[in-house]
């Protein structure tokens, strides 16, 4: 897990999953269904598409609302989560997932302005 934290993790949504296979990513979405085993759950992104997240250990808490998952994208397009972060809905300003999706599109449309390399300045 230490490895993944040192690497830049581009933020993506479901439509970009296929382009980031075997790469570390950061996925923000709304929790849909949690598998009874607690080791897997589905998330929906701002566009309405769903992705599957798999965990190493089963969940120890109730997962709901918006969650930020950091992990690797598997060959099948699933996210193998290293860590996750729940954005509590009862605290702070409610998270606008559609707006987040708009920002994502901008980031990916203009990579020249949003470089993901680590200090790769010329």
């Amino acid at each position, binding site marked *: 897990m230490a490895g993944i934290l040192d690497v830049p993790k581009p933020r993506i949504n479901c439509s970009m999953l296929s382009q980031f296979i075997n790469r570390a990513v950061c996925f923000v979405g709304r929790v849909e269904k949690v598998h009874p085993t607690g080791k897997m759950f589905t998330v929906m992104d701002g566009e309405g598409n769903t992705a599957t997240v798999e965990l190493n250990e089963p969940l120890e808490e109730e997962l709901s609302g918006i969650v930020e998952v950091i992990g690797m994208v598997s060959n099948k397009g699933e996210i193998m989560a290293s860590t996750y972060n729940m954005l509590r809905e009862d605290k702070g300003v409610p998270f*606008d997932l559609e707006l987040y999706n708009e920002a994502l599109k*901008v980031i990916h*449309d203009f990579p020249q302005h949003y470089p993901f390399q680590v200090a790769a300045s010329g």
Partner: protein
Amino acid sequence: MTVELTRGAVEALFKGSQVNNPVLQLLNIRQMSNTSGPPRYRLIMSDGQHLLSSFLLATQLNHLAEDNLLVPQCVCMLRRATTNTLSDGRHVVVVVEMEILKSAEEAGGKIGNPTPYSTDGKLSSPHKVSSATSEPASASAAEVSGPSSTNNNNKDWRKGFMGKAPMKTSPMMVSPMKTSPMKGSPMMVSPMKTSPMKGSPMKTSPMKTTASLPGSIPKSIPIATLNPYTSKWTIKARVTKKSNIRNWSNSKGDGKLFSFEIVDESGEIRITAFNNEVDRFFSLVEQGKVYYISKGTLKVANKQYTTLKNDYEMTLHAHSSIVPCEDSPGIPTVQCDFVPIEELENRDKDAIIDVIGVCKSAEDVSRITTKASREVSKRAINLIDTTGKVVTVTLWGEEAEKFDDSGQPVVAIKGARLSDFGGRSISVLFSSTIMVNPDIPEAFRLRAWYDQEGYTVDSQSLTETMSRSIGSKMNWKLLSDVKNENMGHGAKAEYFSCVATVLYMRKENCLYQACPSGDCNKKVIDQQNGFYRCEKCNREFPNFRYRLLLSANLADFGDNQWVTCFQETAEVLLGRKAEELGQLRETDEAEFDEVFQKANFTTHIFKNRVKLETYNDESRVKVTVMEVLPVDHREYSRRLLSNIQKLAR
């Protein structure tokens, strides 16, 4: 192909008998020398057999003459005309509605060989007729027979009109010349020009009433045909608005008056009653009721006092009569010329217009204090119509409070002012009329459209929606813009908003001792004897109030800016009241410092005022913070996204 003129029409019209849509050729047009009011045009018309110069153009058709559409030798069809008898017995045919069938070139010269038509040997010469027509219509014996024949004509005209309805579809020639009289149109709301063909009840009713009640009830003429040259007439109309009695007193004396507006299918007109007539008619006239009115004086309308579309207005006098009549379905409740919301952009600001739309949403009633220190209620409602555009309408006072926006009602507003506030918006005036779910075809059409598709339409508002941006139009700038755009250098102060982070605040000298009395914020001088003196109030006080005057440095990604925050804004930034800070400074310095530490590097929305100020020969641009607001990240993100999109184009 030469157009056939309706032979014998001239003679028939002159005698006042029925002619169906006669086709005549215009031989000449002349403007009459009037003393006042709108110009009147005299026409010489020929039916190939006779020619007659006693044709007057109704003022609502003046545009035809002014647009040079009435060229001698053009061929026209008279759709509506009334024959009036003047005080000297002369007959004049007033053309109320006319369509130009062929232009002068297409007609190819004078058709036929018409001879001047005259009944009693008097050759109609322009001067004579004009002098005759400009005579005020005074009741004389000759006219007694006049009106009945006049009204007969009207009745017949309309009957003829109706009867010929199926034919109307054919002569739809040269469209730009199609002369549907705009003002005070005999039809209802303009797009429904073809309404008579549908046999709508509106058209048939005056005919019905006149036909069924001969003699006892007066036959009425349309309001649109009223002019100072007609003598005895009766109109039947509904009162749409009635004012209160107003008293005045000037150098000429004093008096009282009240006014009301009436409408029938052809148009509307304003009526005023003075002094004695006020006593006679004020209680009789009720808004919404229909009356027969006759013997009023017509004169040119004083547009200052009315926004009605009629060139004339009426004054009641001792011989005027107002008789209530049974409500007739034919008389509309109101006459409106609605402007499609989309077109509002093309209208001039401050124009008085009518508008109709479905109330999509309405804000809550708010109370504002005007500069005159009056408290007034205000409410903004959003109207959408079939053009898909939305405009914000501001209601005031009682209207604002009474308004019920449940169920998205159709709202029609007559006589409201178009303003350029926020692009285009509408403000209701004291004289405006607001109708909720009015009983007019336009309203039904809107209702049907909205229920079927309108509610889904992603509408575009002409009024910049204020609801998201805080307060009035925010002028978003970057801190670098202040220097780059030389803001504040003009004569007036400039206002802008920005998102910025506090980098540094001057702790020392942020507090000063101020005069404790009321609104006075002047710094007091410590007289060292336990008293503090205020120069402005010229008094001494045993105490003072702490007030904040904070100098801070704000920055964004591009630039930084020193600003001044007064009491209110400083308190928001620091999160403490001035008094508290004053105490803290004296007692617990560590905590005092802590307050500033915590506020440092916080990001807010700042609304600022920037102005060039001169102090002892030195001019500097000074920025003062008017308001500090928390950053609404969603709104900020949306704004950034839209900026990006604009830049990307």
